[in-house]
C-alpha cells in the first residue's frame, strides 16, 4: 500500500481512515500494539497524540488492555475503560457537538470534554513522576477536567441495552466466522490469574427469551449457520439447558447449529456438549490450568481431579475420543512437581479411556502457555518466570510426555516475556514500542513474524529494562502504573486474594455463595443478575 500510495481505507465504505472523525481500536492483546502503530501509519495519521491537531481523527482505544493503557498512552487520544454500549453514544454526542460549534478550543477542547465522560481516560491530561528506582512516584491530572481516578463503565442490565443484530458479514473467512451470542457478561468464579474475571464484574445474565429473539434476528440478518454461545464461562449460564433446547428447536430446520466455545469440567457440560453436537461434531476442550490440586487451589480454579475424571469419563462414554487440555506454567508457588502433574493428568486421561473402552486409542493434546501476570488481578505483584525457566519447565514436561497418543504444544517463552513487560508496563514503554515498530516489529502475536531481537534492541536503545516490568516481584505498597484506572475491584481485595493464594485457600463464587467484597457492586451501583437463581 505504501509503494502504490494507497492510504488505509475502510472495507465497508472504502473511505480513507484519515477522513473519519473518530477511529477506534480494540486492544485485546498487548502483542497487537505494533500493528496499531502500523495501521495509523498506513492511514497517514501521525502516530503521536501530540502531533495530531483537531483536523485529524480522534484515536480511541477500548478493550481489556486499556486498564493498563500506559504503554500506549503516547499514541491514543483517549482510552475507554469497560463496556462500550453506552459510553460510545456519549463520546459520539460530545464529538458531534464540538464539531457543530466549530471545534471549539481545538483538540484540547474536545479532549477536556471527553475526559469528563465516565470511563473515558485521556492519558495526555495526566503527569507521571517516577522514583529513582524506576517505580511510579505519582500519577496526577494536569487539568481540572480530568478525574483523579477513572472508573470503568458498566451496563447495569444487558436485557435493556441495545445490541447489534446486523453485524457486518465479511466475504472472507474470519476468526469467529459465526454468530456470537453473548449469554452473560462477567464471571465471578474468581480464578486468581484471570484478568477478565476482574474487569467484567459483576455477572449479568441476559434473559433466555431475549437471547432467543436475538438469535433469530441474527440468523435472519446474517445467514450464518452457526451460533456460538459466548461468555467467559458459558456453561455457568443459569438457564443454559432450556436455552439450548429452544435454540435448537427453532433453528435446526434452517441448518443452524449451536456451539459452546468453552466447557466447564463436569459431566453436566458433557451432556450439553452431546446435545449441541447433534448437528455438528468437534473435539472437546477442558482447561484445568494447573497440574496439581495444590496449585489449582492456589489459583482458585475450583476444579478437582475427580471433576476432571468424571468429565472425561462422560465424554468417552458419549463417544468422544480426543480431548484437549489447557494448562499454564509459571504460576506463583509452582514447583517441578506441579509441572509434572500435568503429565500425570494426561496419562490419567489415556488410562481412563482404556478402562472405559477396553482398548487404547484416545488422543490427548496438552497445551501449556506461559503465565503472564496481568494488572488488576491478585497476581499483579508477582514476578513472571524468566524465559529460561519457562524453557526448562517445558523440556522437563516434554521428557515426561513421550507417548504417541499425547501431543504437547507449548507457547514461545520470549513472546510471553514481552507480553509480560507490556502488560504491566508504564508510559515510558511508548518509546520502546515506537522504536520497535520503526525497526520492523509487526504481528508480534504471530510466531512467524515475531522479532524478539528487534524488541530487545529497542529496549536497549531507549535505555529501558524489560525485566523490570516482566519478572520483578512488586511490593504491596508500590504505586502501580494503572492505579488511577479502576475496574471497581479494590486493591485491598486483590491483595487479600494474593495472600489467600499463597496459603492455598479458596474463595467462593460470589454469584451464589458469599460475597468476597471486591467492591464492584457497591462502588459502581450494579448487582449480580442471575435468572436461574431468582426463578
Amino acid at each position, binding site marked *: 500500500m505504501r509503494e502504490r500510495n494507497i492510504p488505509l481505507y475502510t472495507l465497508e465504505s472504502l473511505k480513507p481512515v484519515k477522513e473519519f472523525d473518530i477511529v477506534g481500536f480494540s486492544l485485546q492483546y498487548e502483542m497487537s500494539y505494533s500493528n496499531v502503530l502500523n495501521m495509523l501509519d498506513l492511514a497517514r495519521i501521525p502516530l503521536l497524540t501530540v502531533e495530531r491537531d483537531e483536523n485529524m481523527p480522534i484515536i480511541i482505544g477500548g478493550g481489556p488492555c486499556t486498564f493498563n493503557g500506559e504503554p500506549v498512552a503516547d499514541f491514543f487520544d483517549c482510552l475507554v475503560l469497560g463496556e462500550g454500549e453506552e459510553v460510545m453514544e456519549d463520546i459520539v454526542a460530545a464529538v458531534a457537538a464540538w464539531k457543530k460549534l466549530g471545534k471549539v478550543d481545538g483538540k484540547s477542547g474536545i479532549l477536556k470534554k471527553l475526559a469528563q465522560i465516565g470511563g473515558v481516560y485521556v492519558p495526555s491530561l495526566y503527569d507521571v513522576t517516577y522514583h529513582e528506582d524506576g517505580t511510579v512516584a505519582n500519577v496526577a491530572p494536569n487539568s481540572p477536567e480530568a478525574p483523579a481516578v477513572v472508573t470503568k463503565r458498566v451496563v447495569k442490565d444487558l436485557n435493556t441495552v441495545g445490541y447489534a443484530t446486523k453485524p457486518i*458479514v465479511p*466475504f*472472507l*473467512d474470519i476468526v469467529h466466522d459465526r454468530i456470537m451470542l453473548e449469554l452473560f457478561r462477567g464471571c465471578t468464579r474468581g480464578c486468581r490469574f484471570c484478568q477478565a474475571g476482574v474487569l467484567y464484574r459483576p455477572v449479568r445474565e441476559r434473559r433466555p427469551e431475549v437471547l432467543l429473539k436475538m438469535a433469530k434476528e441474527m*440468523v*435472519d*440478518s*446474517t*445467514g*450464518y*449457520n452457526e451460533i456460538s454461545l459466548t461468555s467467559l464461562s458459558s456453561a455457568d449460564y443459569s438457564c443454559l439447558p432450556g436455552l439450548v433446547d429452544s435454540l435448537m428447536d427453532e433453528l435446526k430446520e*434452517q*441448518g*443452524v447449529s449451536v456451539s459452546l466455545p468453552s466447557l466447564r469440567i463436569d459431566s453436566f457440560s458433557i451432556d450439553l456438549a452431546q446435545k449441541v*453436537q447433534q*448437528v*455438528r*461434531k468437534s473435539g472437546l476442550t477442558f482447561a484445568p490450568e494447573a497440574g496439581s490440586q495444590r496449585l489449582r487451589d492456589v489459583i482458585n480454579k475450583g476444579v478437582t481431579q475427580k471433576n476432571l475424571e468424571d468429565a472425561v469419563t462422560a465424554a468417552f462414554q458419549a463417544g468422544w475420543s480426543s480431548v484437549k487440555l489447557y494448562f499454564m506454567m509459571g504460576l506463583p508457588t509452582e514447583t517441578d512437581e506441579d509441572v509434572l502433574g500435568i503429565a500425570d493428568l494426561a496419562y490419567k486421561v489415556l488410562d481412563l479411556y482404556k478402562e472405559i473402552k477396553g482398548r487404547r486409542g484416545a488422543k490427548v493434546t496438552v497445551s501449556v502457555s506461559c503465565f503472564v501476570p496481568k494488572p488488576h488481578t491478585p497476581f499483579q505483584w508477582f514476578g513472571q518466570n524468566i524465559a529460561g525457566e519457562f524453557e526448562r519447565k517445558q523440556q522437563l514436561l516434554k521428557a515426561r510426555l513421550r507417548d504417541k497418543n499425547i501431543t504437547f504444544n507449548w507457547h514461545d517463552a520470549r513472546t510471553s516475556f514481552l507480553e509480560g513487560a507490556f502488560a504491566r508496563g508504564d508510559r515510558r514503554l511508548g518509546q520502546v514500542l515506537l522504536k520497535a515498530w520503526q525497526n520492523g516489529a509487526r504481528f508480534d502475536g504471530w510466531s512467524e513474524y515475531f522479532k524478539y531481537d528487534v524488541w530487545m534492541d529497542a529496549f536497549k536503545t531507549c535505555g529501558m529494562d524489560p525485566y523490570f516490568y516482566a519478572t520483578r516481584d512488586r511490593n504491596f505498597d508500590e504505586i502501580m502504573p494503572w492505579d488511577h484506572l479502576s475496574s471497581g475491584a479494590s486493591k485491598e481485595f486483590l491483595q487479600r486474594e494474593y495472600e489467600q493464594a499463597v496459603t492455598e485457600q479458596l474463595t467462593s463464587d460470589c454469584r451464589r455463595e458469599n460475597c468476597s467484597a471486591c467492591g464492584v457492586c457497591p462502588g459502581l451501583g450494579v448487582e449480580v443478575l442471575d435468572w436461574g437463581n431468582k426463578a
Partner: protein
Amino acid sequence: MAKLRLEITKGEEIRYISHLDYASAMERAIIRAKIPVAYSEGFNPHMKLSFASALAVGVTSQAEYVDIECKEEVDLSQAIKRLTAALPLGILIKGAKYIQGNVPALMAIVNLATYDVTVPLLAEDIGIIEDSIRWFNEAETVSYVRESPKGKKEIEVKQYMAKAVKIVPLEKAVRLMLEIKITPTGSIKPGEVVVALVGMFDLPVDIDNLLIHRTGLYISDGNVQVSPVEL
C-alpha cells in the same frame, strides 16, 4: 425434489473473492432469504448447492450457474425477489428456473466457457497485435508449462480453444475474446492463454494488469450452444 437453477453474476465489487467465499456468500443469502433448501445427512450437514464451474480470484462473470436443491418449491418470482433482497452487491440474479427430477450435475454438462480479457497495450501499432493473434490462431499446437506446488506439467493449449481468438481494439488496450472448452480431462485458464500469447507469440501487452471477465458458460455440441437456464 426440485432444483432451483440460477444464473448469477460475480461483479466488480467482489472481483477479488475466492470461489469458496463466493459460495458461502450464496449460502448465507439463501438462509437470509429463507429458501427451503435441502441439507445433506450426517454429522456435518451442508447445504445442497452445486456450481457449474469455479471462478478464480480476480475474475468477474456475467453468467455463473448454481443449482439449489429445495425441500419444497417456493413460487419462482417470490424466490427471486427474496434472494435479490438478500444478496450482497456484486451478485445479481439474471435468470432462474426450477428443474424437476434427477438431472445431471451442472459441472458435468457445462463444456464451454467464454471470456473477455482486457489488457493494456505496450505497443502503439495494432498490426503487431493482429499478427501475434493470427500466429496463435493458425498454430497447430501451442504448449504451455503449468507450474503448481505438485510440479511442472506441459499442456497443449490449442486442444482447448473452441474458436479462434478475436480481438477488439480499445483505447490503449485490447480486448481478447476467448472461447475455451471444458473437458472431462481438463481445460486451460484464460490467464494461461494470455501468458502463452505473450511468451510465445510476443503479444505486446502489460500482463500484470489484465482483467478477466467470464461472458458465458454453455452446453455445446459443436454447432449449437445453450446456457444451463435455456436447457
